[in-house]
């Protein structure tokens, strides 16, 4: 990925961007996010198949965003997230430059988000075979079996909200679970509290989730919560045709007005 390093260096040297978000070598065999602000640090950037964390979650993080214009190393799922975020007015051409990495691991730089959108639309979101099989298995269960399956899977959840924090689309300053007047979702991580939290999460992501699996990868307990969002994605496809994030599209499950008088909407 010499060309990525080179381009990052140029962008920082010419002050075209203030920070390049990419990956570096992490602990053991992991990789992790790196925020390059000085050209000389660009040499630490790496890219390989281990780089699966969805970096788009950082473009709405205040401390990162406040640095000024960002460039982001973006695989296909990251690009999809960015388009969804653009449609929700969270990023735009003035604050974000996309250094795309194609499924063939080639670097492509996009002039603007609309070019990113065109690129992204060449690919359909496809649920992989293993997860599809699991979805089918769950669909064929009786109601009672399915209930038991989800109670078993969701009861260990201790509500650390790593799944929420890792998801680029979960950027609300105050999540529904954090409200206490009124309190929508029980705070304790007991059976009901967990069920309501996960149903709420899946519903809020329907028509927005781009199936990157960041939520599942973040879960310290490896709870397969991505099966819920995958199910919703399938339902969206069945009921509304194929699903692609689009900068100008209407939103499926929500209406969104930048001039809404409620201040909890960013």
């Amino acid at each position, binding site marked *: 990925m010499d060309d990525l390093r080179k381009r990052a260096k140029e962008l920082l040297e010419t002050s075209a961007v203030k920070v390049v978000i990419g990956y570096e070598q992490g602990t053991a065999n992991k990789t992790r996010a790196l925020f390059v602000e000085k050209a000389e640090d660009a040499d630490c950037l790496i890219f390989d198949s281990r780089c699966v964390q969805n970096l788009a979650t950082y473009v709405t993080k205040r401390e990162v965003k406040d640095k000024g214009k960002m460039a982001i190393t973006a695989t296909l799922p990251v690009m999809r997230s960015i388009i969804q975020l653009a449609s929700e007015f969270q990023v735009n051409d003035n604050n974000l430059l996309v250094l795309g990495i194609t499924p063939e691991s080639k670097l492509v730089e996009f002039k603007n988000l609309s070019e990113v959108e065109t690129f992204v639309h060449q690919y359909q979101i496809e649920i992989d075979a293993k997860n599809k099989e699991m979805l089918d298995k769950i669909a064929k269960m009786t109601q009672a079996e399915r209930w038991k399956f989800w109670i078993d899977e969701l009861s*260990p959840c201790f509500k650390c909200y790593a799944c929420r924090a890792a998801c680029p689309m979960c950027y609300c300053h105050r999540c529904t679970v954090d409200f206490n007047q009124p309190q929508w979702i029980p705070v304790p991580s007991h059976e009901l*509290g967990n069920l309501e939290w996960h149903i709420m999460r899946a519903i809020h992501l329907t028509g927005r989730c781009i199936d990157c699996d960041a939520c599942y990868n973040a*879960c310290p307990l490896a709870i397969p919560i991505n099966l819920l969002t995958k199910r919703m994605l399938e339902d969206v496809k069945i009921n509304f045709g194929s699903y692609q994030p689009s900068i100008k599209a209407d939103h499926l499950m929500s209406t969104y007005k930048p001039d809404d008088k409620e201040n909890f909407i960013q």
Partner: protein
Amino acid sequence: MNIDKRLVRKDSLEKLFDILKQNSKTIYAPFSKNSKVSFREADSFSGITTDYIQTTQSSKEVAFPRNEKILNYSKDKEGMKVKGIDLNDIPEVVLWGVRPCDTMGIGELSAIFNWDYKDEIYNNRLSRVTVFGFSCSKSDDYCFCTSVGGNPGNTQGSDILFTQLGENGDYLAEILTDKGSSIVSISSALFEKTENIEKEKFLAEVPARFEREEIRGKLEKFFDSQLWVEQSLKCIGCGACAYVCPTCACFDIQDEAHGKSGSRVRCWDSCGFSTFTLHTSGHNPREVQSQRWRQRIMHKFLIMPDRLSVYGCTGCGRCSRACPVDMNILEHLISIQEVSL
């Protein structure tokens, strides 16, 4: 003091398990689910896993459950009635398969729950727990017990510490407390008298990586350091590190109402969350993640030793393993030590 050392045959562990059951003990042991190992109540010996460096979650739940009713209430014409929870309902527990970095954590957690107010529920739960520590023969890149006063064969916090004498070998059992002795007395045939066995050569080697006193000294002058901003830039502010940690004790109090009655519940909370210190006024003294990350490190390496005379980290490495963005606490501590003031 001379420690009472016994030999427990590998095959005797299952018999020991059955005897504990016959004596109405509730046993918590490590089980694997979705390839993650956590403690849960064990109905039978089979299925308990021994193949783990460290469990994903600590064993603190046995004394500090993630949700715990602390009182019940009901309202009627005469007013409000409040009823505390019945401490007699707390079971006698054997905690099986705990690593030394967790057994040591029990002392640190207890220091918090007995700082000024003596937490009755916590103390009652803990008084009914017998801890079977299991020494470590393996370690990984995340372990650093030897930098924070522990070691892979540390007896601190265990009632009995088992050390396996080689792969598939028998166990050395060190009987450390009265609770430990009372287990031996109900299963004495399984605890054979033995000549002096040295456990050291069977323990994992964990090199010391930093001096915690030095870190404590640095932290005193570090409050406004830019380092917190740099270290925490990738932190996404979840609760994973606190929830898996054996010594993190923060909780939130919630009322769960069902019509005219309900209960008050104590639930785990984490200083990593943005709402953790949010005031009713809207003001938040820890507005950004760097302040929250600073709190995590300061609490464990400066505030706890200052106020409670114990550190708040046992080097188990769990927070680093569980962190979704690879915030590695060991690395961050080393870089704090390396900063020249």
